[in-house]
């Protein structure tokens, strides 16, 4: 029976821990359970099943940098003698149990007074006793229960747009009230008592004034800016409609003819704002605009006269000595002081395998240290390091947004149509009944209000965005939906995008016959810190259990070549073809004994699943390219998956990736780029649609238009399909709104438009659009729910 950890739900390893008739996968999970039990917080487990998160075994001083005054100040929002308030970003918040636990944190830690969670933003506001607990202690506390705080995020605007809610609420209040008061207008049958009518008319006037001046202000501003830039956008006809409605209504009120079109006026603005609200509900906990500074740590360890002190990254100076530990990012270009080191540059240059470096070689900012700690001497501060300079130059190229939304193109036609109808009806009525000209023209302007038009885009694309979010692609805003539907070229990065860097595949080509040889080889790779050695070690020990460590007479690791060990008179070598004197014409890692080949391995990154079928689906309509910062050792694997050899390029630098995309765009193509690392950042910015792929939704991703969950890479055809369908839905909605407009205009040009007609048409058209777009998108893609 497969048992899972009671706390986090992971598979129990070989040695599960037991307590209270429950099983745990590790001491961390068991520890959290004990803490919850002691503090009567076991309700945590009742809201969701296995809601816990496996705590990382973090070192004691992981958060030590938070106690530096300059850094602490950035996060403390309020402080007095007794308490301090801090707002922590806790990306691991994912369910109701999390909310329960975090808001009851004060029960588990007496130094915390109060905590409040904002689930959508994944934030926790904590009030704690300043004198009794350091900020680093607080951070460590949350880290230990499974919610490590993230301090790298740029200070996002935590203030919700309160003014927008006010505008919406005011418009809603006005709409409801005025429509209620206007009801008698609809059922008038010559009633004589007009005092009620006058009273409600003036009321309507009063209530609609703030709506005109405040709620609708965004539309006037946008229309004005658009006119100044000599572009036409949909806000221009919207403003025209608003003003026409208001002017006509004021005229009616002043002449004691009733509240005029005030109800439609308020309703119009209310529906527009709802559309805007729907469109703007983005993913507040994700960040689409991180630049490279979020990738670097906030503080580093400086070595001064044999002691280590922690300093903020901005205060690093040239010639400083820094200590860098396992898995930490190198903060600036520096020289290695130790004998050797292994650096992982995959995020920065795209090389998939760690690089071995020796003493006095240059280490570049952005690389991650694998294995043992090192000391380095700074040669260039972070901002002026080679790679960060490269990103700065390229990201300075602001992508000028000349992109015009489809709805704005429609707006132009719409305006012209309205103008022409006005002119024609003016001329006609000049002949037939000149007294009615004013009435007819104003009626046309009123009824041709693009309410339904303006709602089509937010709802069609907003629903598409939601659907895509459910399936694992999170868009920055609804414009991306349109752009996604129009692309014809897809460019993919290799390392980290097509491959999963956490897994390596080792193929052993021959079996090792002698078990004594096997033990020797296992001991050799065990002693090496190179990532390839670790991968081979894992592979060899998964199949064979014996773990007798063999003692060598001599053992050496030759950087860039391989391992060499001697026992008695036998020489064992593990390494590249040239090092082991093998001439097989294949790239691999060879094991030899006295220059006789025993076995060899092919070490590859694992490609994500579903790539072949992905390619088969998108090849039909799109060109596909692969740009890799790595060397060409995996060319054959790529070809096997189905990529076209001529469309694969290796050894790409961040600049060359950017240039390639520009080259395609100059040929008139619309390009989608999928990448993950900093080496893709300029290309992602340049592409029409830049998608950052991510294993862990809250780790650093470069600036992008959308973030894709790594497991959903194979669903790209579905996402493109949803976008294209959304465009179809948009057109259907536009057709409906035009139909409503035509009906309305018929009333207008026959001088039969009354407030009743307008009050019916407008809500009806809005509801049709909203319902239709939601219905179409959700039901079409119902089966795809993940």
């Amino acid at each position: 029976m497969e048992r899972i950890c009671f706390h986090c739900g992971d598979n129990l390893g070989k040695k599960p821990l037991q307590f209270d008739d429950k099983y745990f996968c590790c001491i961390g999970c068991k520890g959290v359970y004990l803490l919850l039990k002691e503090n009567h917080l076991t309700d945590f487990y009742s809201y969701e099943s296995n809601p816990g998160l496996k705590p990382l075994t973090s070192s004691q001083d992981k958060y030590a940098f938070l106690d530096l005054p300059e850094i602490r100040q950035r996060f403390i929002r309020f402080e007095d003698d007794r308490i301090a308030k801090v707002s922590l970003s806790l990306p691991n918040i994912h369910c109701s149990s999390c909310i329960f636990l975090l808001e009851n944190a004060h029960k588990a830690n007496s130094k915390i007074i109060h905590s409040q969670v904002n689930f959508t933003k994944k934030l926790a506001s904590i009030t704690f006793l300043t004198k009794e607990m350091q900020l680093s202690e607080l951070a460590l506390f949350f880290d230990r229960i499974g919610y490590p705080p993230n301090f790298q995020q740029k200070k996002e605007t935590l203030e919700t747009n309160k003014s927008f809610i006010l505008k919406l609420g005011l418009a809603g209040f006005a709409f409801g009230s005025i429509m209620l008061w206007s009801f008698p207008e609809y059922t008038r049958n010559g009633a004589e008592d007009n005092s009620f009518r006058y009273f409600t008319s003036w009321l309507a006037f009063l209530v609609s004034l703030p709506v005109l001046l405040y709620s609708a202000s965004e539309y006037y501003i946008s229309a004005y800016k658009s006119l100044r830039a000599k572009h036409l956008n949909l806000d221009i006809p919207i403003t025209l409609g608003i003003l026409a409605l208001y002017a006509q209504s004021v005229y009616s009120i002043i002449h004691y003819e009733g509240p005029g079109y005030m109800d439609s006026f308020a309703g119009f603005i209310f529906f527009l704002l709802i559309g805007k609200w729907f469109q703007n509900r983005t993913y507040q906990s994700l960040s689409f605009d991180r630049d490279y500074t979020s990738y670097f740590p906030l503080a580093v360890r400086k070595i001064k006269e044999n002691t280590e002190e922690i300093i903020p990254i901005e205060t690093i100076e040239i010639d400083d000595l820094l200590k860098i530990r396992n898995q930490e990012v190198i903060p600036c270009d520096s020289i290695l002081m130790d004998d050797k080191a292994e650096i992982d540059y995959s995020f920065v240059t795209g090389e998939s395998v760690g690089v071995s470096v020796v003493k006095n070689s240059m280490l570049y900012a952005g690389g991650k240290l694998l294995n043992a700690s090192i000391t380095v001497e700074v040669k260039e501060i972070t901002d002026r390091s080679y790679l960060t300079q490269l990103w700065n130059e390229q990201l300075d190229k602001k992508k000028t947004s000349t992109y015009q939304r489809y709805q704005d193109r429609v707006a132009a036609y719409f305006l012209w149509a309205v103008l022409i109808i006005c002119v024609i009806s003016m001329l006609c009525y000049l002949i037939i009944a000149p007294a009615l000209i004013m009435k007819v023209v104003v009626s046309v302007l009123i009824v041709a209000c693009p309410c339904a038009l303006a709602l089509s885009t937010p709802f069609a694309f907003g629903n598409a965005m939601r659907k895509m979010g459910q399936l694992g692609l999170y868009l920055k805003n609804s414009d991306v939906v349109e752009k996604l539907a129009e692309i014809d070229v897809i460019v993919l990065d290799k390392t980290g995008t097509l491959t999963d860097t956490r897994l390596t595949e080792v193929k052993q080509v021959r079996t090792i016959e002698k078990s004594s040889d096997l033990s020797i080889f296992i001991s050799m790779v065990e002693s090496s810190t190179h990532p390839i050695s670790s991968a081979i070690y894992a592979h060899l020990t998964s199949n064979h259990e014996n773990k007798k460590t063999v003692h060598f007479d001599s053992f050496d690791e030759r950087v860039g070549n391989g391992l060499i060990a001697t026992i008695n008179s036998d020489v064992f070598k593990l390494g590249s073809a040239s090092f082991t004197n093998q001439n097989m014409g294949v790239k691999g890692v060879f094991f030899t004994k006295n220059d006789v080949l025993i076995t060899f391995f092919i070490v590859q990154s694992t490609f994500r699943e579903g790539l072949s079928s992905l390619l088969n689906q998108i090849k039909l309509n799109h060109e596909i390219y692969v740009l890799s910062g790595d060397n060409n050792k995996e060319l054959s694997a790529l070809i096997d998956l189905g990529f076209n050899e001529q469309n694969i390029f290796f050894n790409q630098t961040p600049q060359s990736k950017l240039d390639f995309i520009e080259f395609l765009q100059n040929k008139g193509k619309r390009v989608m780029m999928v990448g993950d690392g900093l080496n893709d950042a300029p290309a992602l910015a340049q592409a029409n649609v830049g998608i950052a792929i991510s294993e862990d939704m809250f780790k650093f991703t470069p600036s992008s238009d959308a973030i894709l969950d790594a497991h959903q890479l194979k669903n790209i055809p579905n996402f493109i399909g949803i976008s294209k369908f959304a465009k179809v839905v948009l057109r259907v909605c536009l057709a409906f709104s035009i139909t409503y407009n035509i009906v309305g205009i018929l009333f207008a040009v026959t001088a039969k438009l009354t407030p009743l007609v307008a009050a019916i048409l407008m809500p009806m058209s809005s509801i049709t659009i909203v319902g239709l777009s939601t219905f179409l998108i959700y039901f079409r893609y119902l089966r795809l729910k993940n």
Partner: protein
Amino acid sequence: MLVVSLIIALFFLVMFIWATRSGQFDDDYTPSVRMLFEDEHKQKENHGNPEI
């Protein structure tokens, strides 16, 4: 009659504006989950009272 209903309506508008400005609508999801958590006091009470 109309004036009374008007005053009530205005009252709600004012309350809405006050609530928005003091942060009521900043987070519209978490309160829905929060209200499902059981109070510790109520729990202890329930354990104390014998079933009738």
